[in-house]
């Protein structure tokens, strides 16, 4: 190192030594800010859960947003969840509600991956309590979703069952009305794997020899049979119990993610802040040091002028 550079370093070191209090103040502020950002990283921690809403025949049984709005605005429900997640609070009710409104509700959000799948997110300033609260919330939410979706499923099942019955009765009534003389095509059953549409099954000659009434009856019975088959198909889809289609679209609301997955930082690169805080306070220290040195020079020159 050449002598000039040594002199520069010595000068700055000497000046820094003259402002130890300022140096300590900057150091203390930097340490405090480091600890603060370590405890309360900007944008905080988040935990997410992914749930299926519950589907039947490819359609969600309930609207998730509606349930969310209902529950998130329910003070009793939310305070119950807080008690479940964080343990019973000894604080007065107004403080719990204040915390609910200022910290919990703003930190809750969801987005739909698909009509039947939602991601629930909970964000808080500190690590503790994020996961327990979300786990409790998801648990209670799933309970509600199960109740609502089971009720909706029963409703749909009943509606469809009644519809199938009515259509069957209509078809049978038509068959009886037109009697055995009417041309009745053989029925299609969804379970019939061998079934292939066969337009040649009824010959043109047979149709030509039929009466007008017979033909009209055939058309009406075919229409009723078609409606019955479609409704029956929907019924079978609604009440299917095979596991394979239910893996993709489970009927019952389910939590897909592991509730043990820990909360994570919202900003993955938050370590950058811990790197920049010392740099920032180094500049602030330099700023203060040069400021005090300049002020000292001004005072000395003013004193010199007064002495003259």
């Amino acid at each position, binding site marked *: 190192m050449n002598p*000039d*550079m040594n*002199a*520069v*370093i010595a*000068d*700055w070191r000497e*000046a820094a030594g003259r402002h130890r209090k300022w140096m300590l103040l900057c150091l203390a502020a930097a340490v405090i*800010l480091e600890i603060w950002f370590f405890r309360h990283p*900007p*944008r905080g921690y988040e935990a997410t859960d992914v749930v299926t809403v519950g589907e039947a025949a490819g359609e969600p049984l309930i609207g998730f947003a509606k349930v969310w709005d209902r529950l998130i605005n329910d003070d009793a429900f939310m305070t119950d969840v807080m008690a479940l997640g964080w343990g019973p609070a000894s604080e007065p009710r107004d403080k719990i509600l204040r915390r609910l409104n200022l910290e919990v509700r703003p930190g809750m959000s969801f987005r739909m991956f698909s009509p039947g799948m939602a991601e629930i997110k909970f964000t808080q300033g500190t690590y503790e309590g994020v996961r327990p609260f979300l786990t409790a919330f998801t648990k209670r939410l799933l309970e509600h979703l199960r109740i609502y979706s089971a009720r909706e499923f029963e409703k749909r099942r009943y509606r469809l069952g009644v519809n199938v019955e009515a259509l069957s009765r209509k078809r049978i009534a038509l068959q009886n009305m037109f009697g055995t003389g009417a041309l009745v095509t053989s029925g299609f059953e969804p379970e019939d794997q061998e079934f292939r549409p066969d337009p040649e099954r009824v010959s043109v000659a047979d149709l030509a020899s039929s009466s007008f009434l017979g033909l009209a009856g055939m058309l009406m019975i075919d229409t009723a049979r078609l409606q019955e088959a479609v409704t029956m198909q929907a019924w079978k889809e609604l009440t299917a119990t095979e596991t394979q289609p239910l893996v993709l679209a489970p009927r019952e609301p389910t939590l897909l993610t592991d509730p043990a997955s820990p909360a994570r930082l919202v*900003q*993955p*690169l*938050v*370590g*950058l*802040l811990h790197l*920049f*805080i010392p*740099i*920032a*306070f*180094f*500049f*602030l220290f*330099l*700023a*203060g*040091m*040069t*400021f005090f*040195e*300049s*002020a000292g*020079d001004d005072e000395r020159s003013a004193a010199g002028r007064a002495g003259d």
Partner: protein
Amino acid sequence: MSSRTVTLRARHRAGAIPRWLGWYMFLLPLGIPILTYLVPSDFCILAGIAASLAGFRRENAGQPRLGHPASFLLAWIGFCFLGVLIPDHPDFFAFDIASTLWVVLSALCVRHGLRDREGIDQAVRELNKLFLPLVLFCIGGLAAHWMGLDDWTGGVFSFRLYLPFRFPILLGAYLVAAYPFAVIWTGLPFKRRIVHEILYLIVISGIGARSCMIVAIGQVIWTEWNTAQDSRTLFPRWLRFGVFFTAACSAGLVLSSEFTFQRSLGVAGVEAFAKDVPRERQYERAFDHLPDWITGIGLGCFKGRYGEELHNTPVNLLVETGIGGLLAAHAGLLAAFLPLAAGVRRMAEPWKTRVNALLCAGAGLYVLGLFHNLLRNRYVWLVLALSLAMSHAAPSSRSPARDDSPA
């Protein structure tokens, strides 16, 4: 070694400026980047940095006494590193901090290269060399536009009418910064001054920015209000003020509504005097970050988050560098300009007029900065460097009497 010594010694001659600084000032109006953010004049700064470092080592031996403005500048740089959104947008932060440090370094080099007032005058004269050619070039572009060049070229040429800059507002910032030096600093006689003012207003109208036009009108009025040349004998001051106020405002209104060609061509997408929806949106977003105003969100992070800059420099400082950054930046500005403003009345001509020009440029850029983000604008930092140099520069040792002589 010997050549460097010769260069450094030559610089100490009164009124002489380093060669790199002369070229820097001369090339500064050419604002098209040729390498990412770097414009041609920036390459002169590289030479300047080497020369300044050598000079700093030889002459100052590292004395940590940089003056109050530099202290506030250092504090502001410190606050730039505190930002809660930096981890989200490290790329934007890196670009902005690097480019900001670059313009700060450029300003420090310019400041270091200017030792006496004659040197400052020489540097400003270098800057002025391209002012009139550039204004005439822009008027040529405007005339070509009015004559239908856009139709003939299918609109291909229209977006280049703000050459030699990348964006219209950069041309505006250059004109606002350079006009006081070209007209007030040089003490132009009445007729030439009027011609310059008219040309200035016409070119400013072409930028299509309301803020530029407002600042230009203010600068023209400032020029006439403070000019101590021949016009004083023709009219009383109040009459001059009235006439120029009316004339400048009328010209501004007429030119703004009729010839704001950038906007009329749809480049900006809005009418010149329409409601400013983008800025309202930016202010709403700035207020969304109210809890972050303590440390700021980090330099460049507003653009990183929203894809657009906040078009108000002080508010941008507040949002990106926090309350500390805003206060430090303004304390630095005050420390740079207040001594000049306080001492201008006691100065003799021509320096009184010249300081007036400097204050006019500084005020103009500050007002323009209320409508645009000029944090990394080279002319802002140039004016700051010139004001610092002017505050600390000794009067020329070549001819002390010259300070008091009229221009």
